[in-house]
């Protein structure tokens, strides 16, 4: 037990204090997630509906030629599985930022902000916690998908992990950046429509880009510049034990950019969150 005086004289923070803090934030996020069973179920049902119904219906319509990382002809279900994994993370990223808006409105955010540790570190812990929760969901999805004959090589389950962590961080940071601009919870539905759907549909999640190019060259370029496309491709290649370097670079730099943006936006002295009666944040 550290004595009062010892603590008073100590300045700065030790590594173990940083880790304890990270631990605590991840633990709370996991607890909250487990308490919201509906959230877990809906997070799983959403991609499964796509997989079981959408993919089954489109199996005949969309032929997939042999494109990397696949070495044989594949079923459409197999093609969209990585896209659905990224979709889980996209929804989760938006949902954890939704919970930040909620926390801000309900005052729970204050608990976080009276922590003496640096603000950027607290936000980073929040991001990691959100990513950890998304990993739980993705692996639960992979387990069910396995029974549906979507069976990547066993080593793929391991090699996909770093890709998932990176894409989870990117999508979480994006959600956090967006949430900083939202004053009230009601505005969020709009953001879902303007962010989640365009990002998901204008990507390689549902159809390979060469097919998009045949249909509309313009949309092809939109997809190509969509970071979500690269998250999907990063996951797709990693699931088969390969690295898509371009996607890795794009996802990596977008993660950094979104994270810096979010930290900047949540910094009260210059960020987007305004104090005072209008902002409601005190």
């Amino acid at each position, binding site marked *: *037990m550290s004595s009062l005086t010892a603590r008073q004289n100590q300045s700065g923070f030790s590594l173990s204090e940083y880790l*304890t*803090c990270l631990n*605590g934030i991840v*633990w709370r996020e996991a607890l909250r997630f487990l308490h919201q069973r509906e959230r877990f179920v809906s997070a799983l049902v959403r991609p499964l509906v796509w997989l079981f119904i959408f993919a089954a219906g489109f199996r005949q319509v969309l032929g997939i030629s042999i494109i990397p990382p696949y070495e044989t002809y594949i079923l459409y279900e197999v093609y969209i599985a990585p896209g659905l994994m990224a979709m889980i993370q996209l929804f989760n990223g938006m949902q954890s930022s939704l919970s930040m808006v909620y926390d801000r409105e309900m005052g729970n955010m204050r608990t976080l902000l009276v*922590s*003496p540790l640096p603000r950027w570190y607290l936000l980073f812990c929040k991001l990691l916690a959100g990513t950890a929760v998304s990993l739980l969901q993705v692996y639960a999805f992979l387990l069910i998908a396995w029974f549906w004959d979507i069976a990547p090589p066993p080593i793929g389950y391991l090699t996909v992990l770093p890709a998932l962590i990176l894409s989870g961080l990117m999508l979480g940071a994006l959600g956090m950046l967006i949430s900083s601009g939202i004053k009230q919870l009601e505005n969020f539905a709009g953001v879902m429509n303007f962010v989640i759907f365009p990002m998901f549909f204008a990507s390689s999640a549902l159809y390979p880009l060469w097919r998009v190019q045949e249909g509309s060259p313009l949309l092809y370029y939109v997809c190509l510049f969509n970071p979500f496309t690269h998250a999907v491709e990063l996951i797709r290649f990693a699931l088969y034990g390969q690295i898509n370097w371009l996607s890795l670079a794009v996802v990596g730099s977008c993660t950094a950019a979104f994270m810096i943006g979010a930290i900047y936006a949540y910094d009260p002295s210059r960020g987007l969150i305004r104090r005072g009666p209008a902002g409601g944040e005190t």
Partner: protein
Amino acid sequence: MKIGIFIPNATFDLPGTPEVGGIETFSFTVGEALRRLGVVFQPRTLDLDLSVTQNLLYHAALHGIARREARLRSDEVLTRIGLSDRAGSKVRDLSGGQMRRLEIARALLHRPRLLLLDEATVGLDVKARADILTHVRQLVTEQGIGVLWATHLFDEIISSDDLVVLHQGRVLAHGPVARVIADAGAQDVNTAFMRLTSAAAASGSVAP
């Protein structure tokens, strides 16, 4: 009263001695200051769906207090506020007074030198209000913690307190209660406050 958790500058001053009104001050960085500061906000800031202990452990973790030590301390504070038997209950099931006591206990987990309470007794019944007031006064006398108590309820002020009269962000008067009253030419805190804020004022905060 607004509590600036959003402190834009790198340093600010905090009383160096636990006695309220202690003139001695030190400069700390924001993090160092927050470490020495316990804050109880006017709105509830507990996680309603987590248990009493889970709320305490989360706060402790945010202050970098390791799990084992955090458990010891949370048992200790729960005993002090008489909520030991509710340790496993969801916060949602507590009464308003119990939540408030829990928030005070939580703010003390990291053993701050100074405790800020922003209208902590608003919305509580007479009994719960008295309990909290007694509890906080005990903290001052028994543990030597400095307390900044913001309130609109003047019966919470006793004559030995140090008083700061705030009105629209400005300090109108400060000093021992008796002197503030005498300087205003009044008989009690109420009249003194009304005179100081020139009667018409609708808002203001008092901190003994």
